[in-house]
Structures are given as C-alpha cells and as structure tokens.
C-alpha cells in the first residue's frame, strides 16, 4: 500500500521539477552578459587610423601599458558611433570615468563617418585618450562585437578581462567592472564612487 502511495506521487514530483525549471528559466534572462570568447586572450592585432589625428596609425600595442606611479593600469575599450543612441546615453558616465587616472579610455569608432564622429566629440566632450577609426567595421568583427555600445576591460598586458554589451553606467560598473580591478590604494580612487 505504501509503495502504491509513493508511486502516486511520482507524476506530481516530476511535474513540479519541470515547473520549477521553467520558473527558473523565466527568471534568468540577461542578454548583456554574453561572455566574449576572447576573454583571457590578447586584443586581436589591428592597424587602423586614429580618428582625431588622421596621419597617425594605431595598433594593438596601445593597450600595453607602462608600469609606473600615477600611470593607468587598465584600459577600457569602448565601442561607439555617432549614430548610436544608447552611446549618447552612456556618454556622461564615460566622461566621469575619464577622470579616473588608473584607467586609459580608448574609443573604437565603429562604422561611422569621420566628420560626424569628430563633430560629436567636439560637441559633447571627448572622454577617450585615443580613438580608433574603424570605418569598415573590420576591427569590431575581429573583436566579436555584438552591438554598440560595448565596453571591454583590458589589463596592462593587453589581455581582455571582460566584455559588457549595452549601456555602461554606475551600477553596471560597480557590479561587473569594479570587482575585476585589483585594488591599488594609490591610484584607484573613483570619483563619486560609493563602493569601497
């Protein structure tokens, strides 16, 4: 009799497990965290003109950072374009980050017209130390860029640590980027940063 009772509970148990699985699946949708396959790998080799200094050619070596007091220890590569709406939304936060001396902000101007891109930077301010001009989207393709804006955290040896697709703001910065940055008491003091 007992065995029969136990048997009767099998369907309920199975269906319950399936339902819980679906509930969990309904809950976990986060498109912004598609891990980049390049995570832990160096920035792919490239050679492209600088957006603002037309005669200058930039290569992946711009992500190799010299060690030294007061010098940046991480690069932040931000993929943007003048036609990208969300890029404009996150622009003020990038301006804020550019005050952080431990970060080297590099822009990747993606599939844009040089004139409209420079005009926008003049108008709203330039948070970047260098801007790569990727007119045909070749570099973005090699980086595996999914959509603009996209932000990559790169260490001083030019290794990609993390990729975030979508708007960068204070909460995403604190949640995903900040924990990856090794605390260095001297030069990591974010302005307006409430976290320790």
């Amino acid at each position, binding site marked *: 009799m007992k065995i*029969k009772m136990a*048997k*009767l509970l*099998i*369907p*309920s148990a199975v*269906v*319950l497990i399936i*339902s819980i*699985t*679906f*509930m*969990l*699946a*309904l809950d*976990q*949708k986060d498109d912004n965290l*598609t*891990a980049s396959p390049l995570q832990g790998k160096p920035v792919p080799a490239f050679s492209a003109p600088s957006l603002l200094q037309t005669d200058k050619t930039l290569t992946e070596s711009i992500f190799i950072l010299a060690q030294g007091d007061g010098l940046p220890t991480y690069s932040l590569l931000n993929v943007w374009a003048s036609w990208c709406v969300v890029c404009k939304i996150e622009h003020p936060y990038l301006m804020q980050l550019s005050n952080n001396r431990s970060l080297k902000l590099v822009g990747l101007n993606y599939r844009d017209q040089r004139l409209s891109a420079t005009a926008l930077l003049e108008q709203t301010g330039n948070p970047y130390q260098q801007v790569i001009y990727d007119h045909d989207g070749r570099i973005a393709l090699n980086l595996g860029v999914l959509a603009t804006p996209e932000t990559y955290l790169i260490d001083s040896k030019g290794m990609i640590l993390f990729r975030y697709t979508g708007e960068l703001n204070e909460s995403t910065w604190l949640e995903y980027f900040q924990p990856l940055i090794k605390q260095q008491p001297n030069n990591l003091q974010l302005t307006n940063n409430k976290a320790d």
Partner: protein
Amino acid sequence: MIPEIALFCLIVTCFCAFLGMLLPIIGAVRNNNHLISYAWPLSYASFIFASSSIVLLAYSFTVDDFSVMYIAQHSNTNLPYFFKIAAVWGGHEGSLLFWVFSLATWSAAIAFVNRNRNKIFISRVLIVMSFLTLAFALLTLLASSPFERIFPVPLQGRDLNPMLQDIGLIFHPPLLYLGYVGFSGAFAFAVAALTMPDLNIDWAKWSRSWTLIAWVMLTGGIALGAWWAYYELGWGGWWFWDPVENASLLPWLTGTALLHSLIASEKTKSLMNWSLLLSIFTFCLSLLGTFVVRSGVLTSVHAFAVDPTRGVLLLCILAICLIVPLTLFVARSGSIIVPRLQSLYSREVLFLVINSLFAVITLTVLLGTFYPMLFQLFGLGQISVGAPYFNAVFVPLALLVMLVMGGSPYIHWKKTKITTTKVIKNKLFQQTIAAFTLSAIAYLFMDQRATLFVFVVLFIISWLLVSLFFHRLSLKSLAMTVAHFGVVILSVGILMVSYFSTEVSEKMGPGVTVQLDDLTIHYHQTQWRVAANFTAQQAKLEVIDANNKSIMLTPERRHYPVRVMNMSEPAIKGQWFRDIYITMGEKIGKDSYAIRIQNRAFIAWLWLGSILMMLGGVLAIVNRVFANLNNRKLQNSE
C-alpha cells in the same frame, strides 16, 4: 458600452464553466443524476456567452472603437474590412479569447453529439472541458483582457502588423488554435475514462473523430504557416526549426501517433496505455507550445509581447493538466486491460513500433528545443541548437517511420492471415524489387547533385509508394491510402527542394538580363504602386523559359506608413515541378536593386502532400460519420 457587454459575457462564461464543472462533480459524488445532467445546458450556455463575447469584440473592430486599447493597437481605419476581423485574433489578448471561444465551442459540440451516449461518462468529459474553459477564461480576464479601455481615446489605431495583413495569415492562427484546442477533446475523453470504474468502455471509439478533426486542423495550420513563410518572408524557406515552430510540431507528432494508437485501441482494445498517455501528452504539448510562445522562455524570432505573469499562469494550467491525469493513470494502471497478442505479425505490433518511433522523435525534438534553455540554466553558457541538428536527427527517424509504414500491407489485425512466412517473404521481395526499380529510374533522371543519400531516400519513398499499390484498395482503407500517399508526395517535395534548388543574386536595373538554368530574366522597369495602406516600388521583370514562353513577374518593396515598416513582397510563378521565386532586395546604385532569383524545385509538392494528408483525415471522418449513421439505422430497425 459594447466592449463592456462583451466583458460581461466573458465573465458569465467563467461562471457557466465553473458551474459546469462543479455541479456534475457534486452530482457524481452524491450519485445525483439530476445534477449530473446540468453539464449539458451549462456547456451550451458557456458556448453562447463565449461566442457573444468574441462576436462583440469583432463588431467593435469593425466600427473602429479605438477607446479599446487592444483595438487601438491592432487596427486602423484604413485597414481593409477582412483584416479588421482577422485582427480579433491578431494579438495575444484576442487570441486567448479565441482559445476560450474554441474550447467552449468544442465542449458544446461534444455535449451535443454525445447527448445520447453513456451519460455518466460524457458528463465527466464535459467536466474536464469546463475546467479548461474556466482556466482560459480566467487567464483572459485576469491577465490579458482585450476589453481594456484607454483614455484619451486615440484618433487612429496603430494598425495591424503588416506581416499579418495577408490572406494566409487570416486562416493560419485560427486553424492552429483549433488544432491545439481540438486535442482537448482527446484529453477530456482520456481523463474521463480514467475516472470510470470500468475502464473497458468505448472511449477510444468516441474520441477518435474529435482527434481526427483536431489533427486535420493542426496539419492545415502548420502547412498554412509554412506556405505563408514561403511566399511572404522572401527567402524561399518554409521550415526553420525555430522553437515556436517546433512547439506546433510536437503536438502534431504525438497527435499523429495518437490517431493510429486509437485505431488499435478501438479495434482490439490493445495499446490502451499508449492511447491514454498520448491523449494526455498531445494536449499538454499544445499547452506547452502556448506557454513557450507567450512567456518568452525560449529565444525565438517570433517576437511576442512577452509577459512572465501570463507565463506563470499558463504554467500552472499545464501543471494541473499533467499532474491530475498522470496521477490517475498511475493509480489506475493496474486495471487497464492489456490483451494478449496472438501473433508477432499483427498490426498491433506494427502500431506499437510506430508509436515508439513517434515517441522517440517527439522526445528528441523536445530535447533539442529546450537544450539551450537547460544549458544556460546549468550555467554552461549559451548554445544554439538549430536546423542542422534537427535535420540530422529528424530525417533518419522519419525515414525509419516510412520504412515501417511500407510494411503495413501484409500485416493484419490480431493475426496475419497469410500463414506461411514464405508468401510474406515473396511479397516483400517483390515490393523491394519494384521500389528499387522505381527509385533507380528516378535517380537516372537526376543530375550530379544527386548523392547516395538522395538515392536511399528515393528508395524509401518508393518503398512506401509501392506498398500503397500492394494494398487491397477498399473504401475503408481509402482514407489511409490518401493520407499515406500525401506523405509520399510531401517527402518527394522536401527531398527535391533541398537538393535541386538553384539561385542567383544580381544587381539589376532597367535593361539588365540575367540567366538562371534555362531561364532568361530581363529587367524592364521600376514602377510605383499605391494601395490603401501602403506604397510600393515594383520591379517589372520578364522571365523567358527554354520553350520561349514569356511571363511577367513583379516583386515589390512595400512601405507601411502607420507602423513605419518596409516589407519585401516576392513574386512567384508556381509550376508543377518548380517555382520561379523573385525577391526585390535593397536599392543599390541609382536605379538598380539587388534582385534575388530562385528556382525552387518541386515546392508545390509540399502543399499538395499536406492537402492530401488532410484529405485523408477528412475521408476518415466522413467514413466514421457514415458508419455511425448506419449503426443508428440498424438500431432503429431492430
């Protein structure tokens, strides 16, 4: 005022369905026949109120009452009249109301047709139907009412999605829903049977007609969807193995197995377990499909207004529809009769094999569809399971099914009459030779694209085709022959379109000529076309074939101003052995467009095959109706 009356009708439907469930249950517990018989009038009442509700919504659509949010979002004063009606089921809320309406219609029909049969049993069937009507009516009322008002009232509606403004899509969704909902009949019969003290009643016999109707509708719905995708989307594909498509295929697969299983259960009381479980799972898979589509739990191109609350409610309904019947099944499994087999060479065994194969296919497609979800859930990252996987696993299994189908002529119910195995062997040998000859001849006509695999598929198709001729053709087996012949035609179409289609993409403008196979395509001019709710740029192309016969084709790019959408409308010339399919792509250069010309081999055979399969189903229904009438006459004359 009208929308409020419609809302009120829906509330009354809930009420009737609730009573229709409650009173007969009390009646069954107290053994009160009077209470039990309430199941009938209450079924009719919920049908009347549910249909009033949907008719009133349709009326509000026709008078452009944009104070109703649902209408404002899915209609427009410029929308043609036809599409205003179709817009009733053009959105999530309305389509749920359509579910309620079809459930109520179905239960009223079951109540009416079976009014003279076993009263206790049918009342239980109606209890289950009332429960389903109630569940969906509540879901519509609480989580997705199409009657909500907005203020201020917009002057103009947002228009129906241009994708939906198409004749194929007026009928595709309701057919699909009628198919899904239709399987609720099979479900209700199975659940009711499980509650009966004596499981040995004729439920399989009564359930079969309802299952057949549902199957025909679902087949039609899926085929219409594939046809629509083919002529509307502009790249000539017809099946993409998207989760939402798989969701409609799953109940079709179990439904097809169920149809066959029910025949065995009706004729020899065998495969009863299978029939019960397939009835339950077929409807639950329909519910699962609805859940997948409306909750957004899987990533699909079929963007739907996704709402997790609705998802959770649907999941609850699904859980109840699984737990209760399956627990009943476990409890009653001891009392389900399993008759002894007289011979291994019997149709029961053949159907057991077919059922098993369909179960394997269903579970495989189910796993493939949900694998990415589970993968992510276990923290393994993201993965895609798409067409190449499904083709790789589905095609061999489907071929296996066709091999077994081709073995049916020699095998009879209970015991195969040809006693000597020698005769069977002889017949099988003849069939193999005939099939081999047929496929070899077909193979010789093909060009170098025909691989060994193509030959194997050809052989299996021929094997099935030949077996149909080996059958003794009778009025009784006509339905089966037609349906199986449909499978043959469909498979030929799928094989040919996959292996022998060609295409070319060219920059074309006035004066440009392009060659594809035997066709010469000449671009004459670009012209404008203005319709009520869109404007279009049209390319005028002349296609000349090997026999110097010339036809004009005009693919176009449409712009729908209300939704600010652009759509490409391909031009298709359908022929028996190929479709010429031309799409107008983006504008490149001054007066030039990217024109894609495709030669889709044998595509018409897909639609023909589907129609034959449906026709087979219809013939089977007609057969049963006549048989029933005859039975009644016999009873009357006795």
